[in-house]
């Protein structure tokens, strides 16, 4: 059994969950800090800021999802399947879109959401718009997720 193929697949899964998770945690933390500042002055806006803070969290979930797809694919829970180095490399590459786009788009989305907190600080009635701006950023994480999944489907073991 070829260990290199398995190692490469693991690297892919780890990158997908890891990088996207890092991105999300940074993004969520940025929003959380700005929100905490606002809440100190106006505790009544907690619900609104919570919604904004949750936005950059999805990238981490997408990353985790791809990681699990890889895990299922190579049978890491249960019995490992045979993976050639070529297949392993393909799996690693397939993970990259969600890993990289997840990392950067979550941080970017965090910044957009933090700016929206500035918006609702002044105009709480515009929450709807404040949510939509950061939600635009997520489109690209969604597209990357689709790309990663399609690529993974393409690898047959």
């Amino acid at each position: 059994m070829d260990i290199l193929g398995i190692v490469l697949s693991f690297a892919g899964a780890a990158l997908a969950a890891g990088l996207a998770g890092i991105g999300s945690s940074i993004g969520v933390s940025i929003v959380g800090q700005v929100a905490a500042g606002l809440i100190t002055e106006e505790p009544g806006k907690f619900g609104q800021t919570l919604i904004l803070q949750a936005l950059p969290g999805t990238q981490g979930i997408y990353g985790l999802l791809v990681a699990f797809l890889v895990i299922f694919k190579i049978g890491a829970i249960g019995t490992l399947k045979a993976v050639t180095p070529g297949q392993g490399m393909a799996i690693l590459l397939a993970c990259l879109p969600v890993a990289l786009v997840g990392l950067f788009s979550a941080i970017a989305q965090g910044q957009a959401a933090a700016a929206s907190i500035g918006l609702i600080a002044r105009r709480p009635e515009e929450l709807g718009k404040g949510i939509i701006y950061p939600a635009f950023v997520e489109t690209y994480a969604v597209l990357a997720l689709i790309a990663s999944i399609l690529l993974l489907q393409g690898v047959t073991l």
Partner: protein
Amino acid sequence: MAVAEMLKVRLVIHKSAVSEVISTLQNSGLMEVERLAGDNIESETHEHLDMLPLPDNINILTRLVSEMNYIVDFLSPYAVRREGLLDRLSPSRLPISRKQFEAVAHNYRRYEHIYDDLFVMENRMIEIRNEKARLEHDIEELEPWRELDIPLGDAASTGRAMLLMASMDEKRLPDLIAELKKHREPFHIEKISAFAGRLYFLFVAISTDTEALTIIHKYDPVLWDFPPGTPPASIRLDQLREELNHLEQEMSEIEKQAVVIAADIDTYKAACDYLRLELERYTVLEKVAGTESVTVIDGWARARDADELNRRVHTVTPLAEVTFRNPLPGEDVPVSLVNSRLTRPFEIITRLYSLPSFRELDPTSSLAIFFFIFFGMALGDAGYGTVMALLSLAGLRFLRLSDSGRNFLQLLLICAVSTIIYGAYSKAWFGNLIFPDYDFVGGFITVMIVSLALGVVHLIYAIMVELYDNARHGDRAAAILDQGSWLLFIAGTLLFSLSRALSLPAAVGVAGNYLFAFGALASIYSMGRMQKNIPARLAVGLGTFYMSVTGFLGDVLSYLRLLALGLATGGIAVVVNQIARLFRDIPYVGLLLMILIMAVGHIMNMAINIFGAFIHSTRLQFVEFFGKFYEGGGREFRPFAAGTKYIEIIDKEGAG
């Protein structure tokens, strides 16, 4: 799809009946009062009306309302809570009969003085709090010097000797002593105590020894200096503690008083609402105009309420005349939405963006069906749908809700139904908990095609709404040229590609080809038609056409988020089950652990994905759908009504 018909209302009332009529308007809540502006007063009545002078009462009432608000806010923390958990979740308004309500207000004189009392109390409480903080700070500062038994005020430099009271990092003391020893001048360090890693000490040296000072300075000392006459620390500390005790006692006395006064908080709440209603009636007077004998009130009412309004006014007085007319072009008409029971909850989405203006279509019912489908696909787990449905049903049944709260829960319920249908179809019940053969990636390609197809349908629908909207406003050219040609082009493209994919008869493909070509040409023509010369038309037409096509493709791709969200829900749910099952075989606690992990995992997954499904279904409406035709910017119809904050009048109709 409806923005309610509105009528402009004019009430002409004899002076003697004004206050009855205003009360009636407030109780019925049917009419929005509009400020009478100078021009429209004259043009219609041929009689010059003056704005009525404002009664001074308004200022007095404003003050009283803010005083009552203060009383209620101040007392609330001291009021005895007799509420259960449910009441905390949805604070109830105090039920009260109209008679009681008015009695409360008539007794106003009896608690007029409360405001002054509370004001004095609060000031004293603030003083005490500040004083306490100061004392506590002093105590904290003095505590380390407790063992020093000389009066603190005497610990100062004398002519020959320099004496410092200082504190510094305990660990650096040996270094300091070593360095001072190297310096070879006499010095003495008397350790007093150590607190939280800092050493408190007296430092004595010869007063001319600036070198020693410089050395000490290197060790970041904090220097202490007490005014002359300060007694030894232990005595001073006892004094301070004594003072602190006194203050605390006084504080608890005041709080006891507050609790006693707060026993009557319901009365104050009622009085507060009474005064506020009174004030609102007076503020209406700011907006009316009149002559010596006649007062005119202008405003808006829903067309269907017109008769009711007329009847209500005439039951209180014969001395009033109510006239209605249709809104004139250019008038700023307030907007009220009318939707069926099933689509009304979706108004939340419309409002989140912006109300339609009076002359625009209400997009609520159009977005309702798509929102319904999108949400179901994006969440896509029947188990989660069931939990959502049960929770929102429970909320609707047990919580006392405002209208918007009720609408929101109804929206969640409707979305839950959609989720259950979609989830049941794809066999997703808490991931693969019930059907072990549920494969969340299995239908990947199918779901992808369905998402894209839904996108195409949604977008075409948006174009058709735009077409209808243009036609409705009489802009036939725009309807046919802009939207019509574009629709033809899309239809042609679809026919052409479908005939390839599904191997339909060749004729369909050919028809598609022709539609495609014709639609494209017509679009290019229509998009460039605003330009003057032919080259410019061609350039602008082609450019805009290209942008439209790529824009359309981008919009369609955006619907892939439905697939992604559904996958994320299903995937994580399956993983939660998988991980939980790993624990099943642990002896004794295994089953319990498994259930616990499943519960926590599914609750988190559900919460995150309900949120995501909501956000992204909304986004698809706002950006892809509304972007095509909707502007919004309407002003909400806010009828003048008896809006109470704390109490609820049970027999509303009892007044006259």
